[in-house]
């Protein structure tokens, strides 16, 4: 019995049990991670998970059931249970459910991969982390940490409308960090970001990071931060490095444009959105430099795929065009509720999870400047980079972010290092203040985006480059 056979059996059983639509995903995911601390391997974990999840629509109510068994009997039982759960949902019914059209396709897709990350010998990968963390420790950090993670996911999707799609997506990445411990506080520096940079690529991404070459710098910076002056408190011009801007996009744009949040479907947990669909196409989200795309087609970016987990093909769309809000992340049912004609952004974290609206690659189109030009054009400000903490309200408006490191900018030059840099603001006011944007774009990968109940961890990508924001409140502290 093939994976497609199991998925088809589950779908058919759901239909036989009364569903008017059903789809099923068989997923086989292999995961490997290794971490090192102070020159020793700390943990090596390898996981292999195989199972099937089936979703049934009975009337206008959904049900979902997942099992770790691909036998015909188990698949059929899962389909029946999904339909039964959907019937129970009808005890507290909602409005009619429609699905925007999605052409049934038979297709196969795989992410590009030069060096199979699971094929690289463990000893090679371990040696890299040991060497890098030993260097970090040797250069003065109290705690030197290194990590890589690899996901190799094969999935088979079948729907009652005729979709039959298989995909193989390989993702990996890694990074190093240095923590120095002082009296009453710690300082951390990471490269290239905390817990690393990730993409839908092979091991070539980790090789390209050249972790050992950056070990000394982050160790020395973490030590120097312990005695650096505090980031001043007040309003100033803020320059963000690309890694921090990626996080800013993720939290204050990516989540805000999720259609399930806008419709209230996440109200009790992740929250809603400040965006009102009545303003789609007219709302000014940011300055004219702000053009943000939803693009799951970017080669190597962490949010890339061939088809989403409802069978919709990867398509590039604008979310914000020259500062105006024009698009959302949607699924087939949420799009129908909103009167839109596209889904394409639904994904499930493994076979045991319900597919839901998730970010793909949500990022900024490049601007006309460079970081050095932005610094040179700034008379008085602060440059911050590499995220250390992030917090935003349930409408995705009020945020406060902390970075690992800051620098004073005076008369167009980078000055003293600053410790504990933080900044706070309101999303659209912040984005409207962006007046300079670099073209030095990197597609940063975020492998830890939490959403949903039961919890799901999403992998998202965020092309971003350094940018300047005017009149921002910085230096918030306890």
């Amino acid at each position, binding site marked *: 019995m093939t994976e497609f056979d199991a998925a088809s059996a589950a779908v058919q059983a759901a239909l036989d049990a009364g569903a008017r639509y059903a789809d099923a995903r068989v997923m086989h995911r292999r995961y490997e991670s290794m971490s090192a601390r102070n020159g020793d391997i700390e943990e090596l974990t390898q996981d292999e998970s195989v199972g099937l999840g089936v979703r049934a629509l009975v009337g206008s109510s959904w049900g979902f059931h997942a099992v770790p068994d691909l036998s015909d009997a188990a698949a059929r039982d899962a389909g029946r249970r999904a339909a039964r759960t959907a019937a129970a949902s009808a005890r507290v019914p*909602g409005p009619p459910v429609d699905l925007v059209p999605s052409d049934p396709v038979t297709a196969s897709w795989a992410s590009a991969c030069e060096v199979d990350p699971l094929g690289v010998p463990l000893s090679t990968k371990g040696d890299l982390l040991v060497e890098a963390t030993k260097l970090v420790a040797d250069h003065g950090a109290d705690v030197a940490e290194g990590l890589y993670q690899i996901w190799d996911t094969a999935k088979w999707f079948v729907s009652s409308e005729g979709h039959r799609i298989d995909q193989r997506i390989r993702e990996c990445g890694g990074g190093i960090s240095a923590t120095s411990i002082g009296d009453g506080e710690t300082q951390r520096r990471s490269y290239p970001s905390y817990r690393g940079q990730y993409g839908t690529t092979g091991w070539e991404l980790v090789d390209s990071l050249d972790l050992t070459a950056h070990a000394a710098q982050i160790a020395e910076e973490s030590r120097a931060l312990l005695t650096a002056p505090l980031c001043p408190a007040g309003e100033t011009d803020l320059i963000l490095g690309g890694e921090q801007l990626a996080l800013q996009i993720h939290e204050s744009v990516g989540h805000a444009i999720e259609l399930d949040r806008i419709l209230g479907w996440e109200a009790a947990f992740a929250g809603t959105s400040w965006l009102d669909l009545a303003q789609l196409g007219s709302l000014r989200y940011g300055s004219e430099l702000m053009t943000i795309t939803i693009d799951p087609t970017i080669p190597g970016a962490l949010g890339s795929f061939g088809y989403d987990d409802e069978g919709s093909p990867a398509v590039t769309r604008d979310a914000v065009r020259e500062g105006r809000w024009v698009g959302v992340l949607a699924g087939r049912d949420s799009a129908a509720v909103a009167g839109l004609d596209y889904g394409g952004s639904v994904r499930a974290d493994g076979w045991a999870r319900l597919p839901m609206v998730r970010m793909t690659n949500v990022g900024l189109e490049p601007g006309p400047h460079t970081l050095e030009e932005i610094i040179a054009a700034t008379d008085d400000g602060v440059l911050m980079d590499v995220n250390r903490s992030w917090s935003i309200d349930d409408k995705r408006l009020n945020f406060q972010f902390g970075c690992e490191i800051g620098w004073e900018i005076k008369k167009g030059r980078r000055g003293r290092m600053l410790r504990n840099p933080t900044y706070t603001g309101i999303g659209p006011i912040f984005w409207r203040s962006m007046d300079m944007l670099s073209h030095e774009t990197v597609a940063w990968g975020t492998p830890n985006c939490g959403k949903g109940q039961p919890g799901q961890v999403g992998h998202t990508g965020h092309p971003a480059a350094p940018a300047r924001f005017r009149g921002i409140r910085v230096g918030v*502290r306890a």
Partner: protein
Amino acid sequence: MSTELDLAGEVIELVRRLGGPAAQAEVVVTRADVALTRFANSFIHQNVAESGVGVRLRVHADGRTAAGSGSVVTPDGLTALVERTLAAARLCPPDPAWPGLTPPAPTPSGPPVDEATAYAEPDERAERVRAFVAAAGGLEAAGYCRTALRSSAFANSAGHSAQGRTAEAAMDGIARTSGADGVARLAADRLADLDGAVLGARAAAKARAAADPVELPPGRYEVVLEPAAVADLLQNFSFYGFNGKRYAERQSFAEPGVAQFDPVVTLVDDPLGGSGLPFDVEGTPRGPVTLVDAGTTRAVAHDRRTAAEVGAVSTGHAVPGGATWGPMPHNLRLSPAPEAPVAVRPDGPGAGGSEWVGGGDLSGAVVDPDTAALVTGVRRGLLVSDLWYTRVLDPKSLVVTGLTRNGVWLVEDGVVARAVRDFRFTEAYPRALGPGAVLGLGRRPVRQPDRVDGVWWEAPALRLASWNFTGGASG
């Protein structure tokens, strides 16, 4: 179908056969049935169930350690798991800090499992959602009802084995009106102990009381934190403070033997107090661990590795991935006041002693006698229902930023004066509960569910002298 203990034994035998008699191994097999019925806009929009099995194996061979896990429990699947984990161990660098296996030891029986909860049907969860929505009285309602069963067995090559089962039910919902939300949240050992109507009425009462909020200037305010808000403090204390790895690395504020908290603060991790398995993933028996006793820090959570590092013994807090994240408490209780006056409700109808919690006329911000008693003593301060999106600015001092959510009210002269818009705060959690900082403690702890079943945070309401609000949510 093989039992979890059978499967664990099979894996140990496979390691012995494929890895040789010197290979050390420990294995945990867990079957889980988790179902969650989710509602929003007052209807069920997501309704899921998962039947899963997981095998987690850790081997130590020739001085090297590796871990593997999988969901395939056929003979071929188990063999593949053992082979790849042994292969991984051979390729790993030496592990000189390997703490050895847990020796045979008696394991306590866990809390009794309510079979009706373990095998609850979708209709039973849906019925509680229906009751919640109905009790919200026309307000928009959103949230979930969850049931979970976990059956787990442990075995190692040192001859130790253990098994246990646990069930949990939880309900978490909000009611919404005019941009104001009210929340009701409860975890229990039995689904029968969750009354959707009571919870829905509580959420609706608080939402109505939260309508038309005014914006107050940021600054330091005295606060009464309701149990949902206190749960966030407990969670951050666990992750960053009482985490044995962070303690060993000197990244924790915890200093055993030092009076770091107000004398009314006693914190106990009590996995067997509800929905907890009686052993951890290293097979160490679990039981209550007093982390803070009357204000003095007494212990942090350890697994075998961190315990060996600091010369302590494991407290039964090993978790998957613990070498990276560290061992931490997952069932933390802030002990209630042994005796505290229960005030007559000062701000509206519905007074009625303990009956207040479960019924009566719920129409105000204060819906239980504990909170009422604490609010009565506040000359000017804020009543806070819930905290949201808290993140740590510095792990050692445990400075945290986040926002209030699901209702904030100004309290003046012991009476709730009016609803207030949400605040952002930036506060050092240990300092907020430091000596002299706790002005009152409720006597009725309420168990708050975590995002993961089996994890909970239990606390009464808490009155604190000062909380640092650094901005309004609108700017």
